[in-house]
């Protein structure tokens, strides 16, 4: 199958007073039509910056320094003006982090839908409203009640569902969701994940989901990319990531995720803390925290294929077992 989104050697840098911060460092990945791909990483791993770069929307002082992003064969980074506007939201929509707060507080919900449609050249109000109603029902909201409401009259979970419906208004082919459930209650979170899965099937949508939470990944993702310090450490299908991880950082993340089930004694934090991205250590960025590290790790391992669809950036992947060695 041909990927819908293809990213190659993408580099995003922020020029700060203290030096140059490489937030996204030679990231390559493919997203296939109809799948839910999760990018998992901690704060500072570069996943949000990556999402902005995919929309060619990196905020200054950030800059895309090199690399390619192509969507359905189109070179995204070369798009300008109207073509870029059409790409954003019509082709690829984004649900930002803390999306409950992106709604305009003095606009009723219905006007958010109408405004967006008008802005993108849809003038048939009746059609737009009919579709908006259908979308709201899809996210289990009652259009009659929600349309006339102002954002503050809705709960956080309801606002989040409004934003998801809004992102689908222009029938995009792909939606990028940045931490879509993080601020929500557990019950609402589970519900929204089920809704996303349903919508994906009904609309044949492709989703790129950014999260720090391995439990969310386990619940919803088909494939997973693990990011650390701006780099992709491992890419594989979700079962391989959880049951046959080959990067020590992936293993560490699994062990560091608390769970309601299973043996507590196998849970442990990853020692040390993430590197300073302005002065990163040479070679593998995980080396200072890694139990497998050797002199070789001062050379950049690069992302390489180890099995069909399974990519790892580690010199020692063959030795890596599911049981993290203590360093």
């Amino acid at each position, binding site marked *: 199958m041909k990927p819908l989104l293809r990213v190659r050697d993408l580099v995003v840098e922020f020029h700060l007073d203290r030096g140059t911060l490489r937030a996204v460092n030679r990231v390559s990945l493919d997203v296939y039509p109809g799948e839910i791909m999760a990018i998992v990483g901690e704060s500072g791993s570069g996943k949000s910056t990556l999402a902005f770069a995919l929309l060619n929307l990196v905020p200054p002082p950030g800059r895309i320094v090199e690399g390619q992003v192509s969507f359905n064969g189109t070179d995204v980074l070369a798009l300008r003006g109207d073509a870029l506007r059409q790409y954003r939201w019509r082709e690829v929509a984004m649900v930002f982090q803390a999306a409950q707060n992106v709604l305009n507080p003095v606009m009723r919900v219905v006007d958010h839908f109408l405004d967006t449609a008008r802005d993108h050249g849809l003038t048939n109000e009746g059609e737009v409203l009919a579709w908006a109603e259908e979308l709201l029902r899809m996210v289990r909201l009652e259009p009659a009640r929600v349309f006339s409401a102002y954002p503050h009259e809705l709960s956080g979970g309801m606002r989040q569902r409004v934003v998801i419906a809004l992102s689908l208004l222009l029938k995009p082919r792909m939606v990028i969701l940045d931490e879509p459930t993080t601020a929500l209650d557990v019950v609402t979170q589970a519900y929204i994940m089920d809704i996303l899965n349903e919508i994906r099937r009904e609309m044949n949508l492709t989703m790129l989901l950014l999260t720090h*939470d391995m439990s969310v990944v386990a*619940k919803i993702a088909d494939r997973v990319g693990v990011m650390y310090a701006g780099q992709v450490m491992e890419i594989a299908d979700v079962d391989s990531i959880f049951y046959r991880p080959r990067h020590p950082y992936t293993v560490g993340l699994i062990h560091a995720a*608390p769970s309601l089930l299973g043996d*507590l004694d196998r849970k*442990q934090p990853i020692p040390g803390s993430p590197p300073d991205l302005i002065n990163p250590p040479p070679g593998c960025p995980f080396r200072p925290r890694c139990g497998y590290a050797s002199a070789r790790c001062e050379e950049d391992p690069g992302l390489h294929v180890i099995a069909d669809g399974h990519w790892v950036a580690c010199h020692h992947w063959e030795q890596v077992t599911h049981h993290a060695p203590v360093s």
Partner: protein
Amino acid sequence: MSTPIISLENVSVTFQRGVLWRRQRVHAVVNVSLAVHEGEVVALVGESGCGKTTLGRVVVGLQAPTRGRVLYYGQDVRTLRGEAVYEYRRSVQIVHQDSYAALNPVRTVYQSLSAPFFRYRLVRRRAEAREKVAELLEMMGLTPAGDFIDKYPHQLSGGQRQRVVLARAVALRPRLIVADEPVSMVDVSLRLSILDLMRSLNERMGIAFLYITHDLATARYFVRTGRIAVMYLGQVVEMGNLQEVLTWPRHPYLQALLSAVPVPDPRRARHMKPLPLRSLDLPDPTHPPSGCRFHPRCPYAEAICGAEEPPLQTVADGHQVACHLVDKVPEWVLS
């Protein structure tokens, strides 16, 4: 069982909001009784808006209850005078969620951590204070202490900052620390290390913890053999030994909550089905439902549930549930 350090007796906290002619009352905490004993670890769990943070503030004396009493070693804290007030404040400390906001940004670690020693006249000279602070930092795993003592908060990582905040709470050898979401802003790879540190403080120094969180999985990791109290809209709906309560939850709310918690295991996650609720969204806290506050969302609710408030009743040794239908609710086991 040992003496309770703190016991809350029928505590309620009501906030008023809005202007004079349109006053609204928010019942943040309603009739909660809870005790924390010496050396004990208790989790206080609930979703946002359930009143768990307000209850934590009541325990440390930052919020006065509207009704009910707070007892410190059996004595009403409102009647404490002189030295006894100091003793209570020193012995019951709090750690907040946001370590960045908790530390003064223009003070070094030394300045922040030495303040309580001077305040309680435990040291006289600067050299003595530095030694005490260094000792404290080493105890918190910030080694060597020399690398951290003269740093400003912004020069530390989130995990290191939270260790400094814990150090400040520990400085005066408290008996109880109320930890309000201490790891929710810490990087996921480091969360367990902060919880491990808290556990070692409990084991080595006998400090009791009231761990306030929305996250049942971290509560399980931290509390182990301790107790858990689950809150919903201001009330405790289920309480008991954590292992028993999480394995055989009896309250329909807790069953629904547990069935919705995602697990980091894809095969299990695919088979987990959240229990259906009659309504997804929380009711308005200014107009809480009558009777059992969960009844409009509860799939099992009967007439009595809307009419009468269910009391906490004991269903097994130390396991209490506030549900009229506790004998009728189908068994649900976490697996």
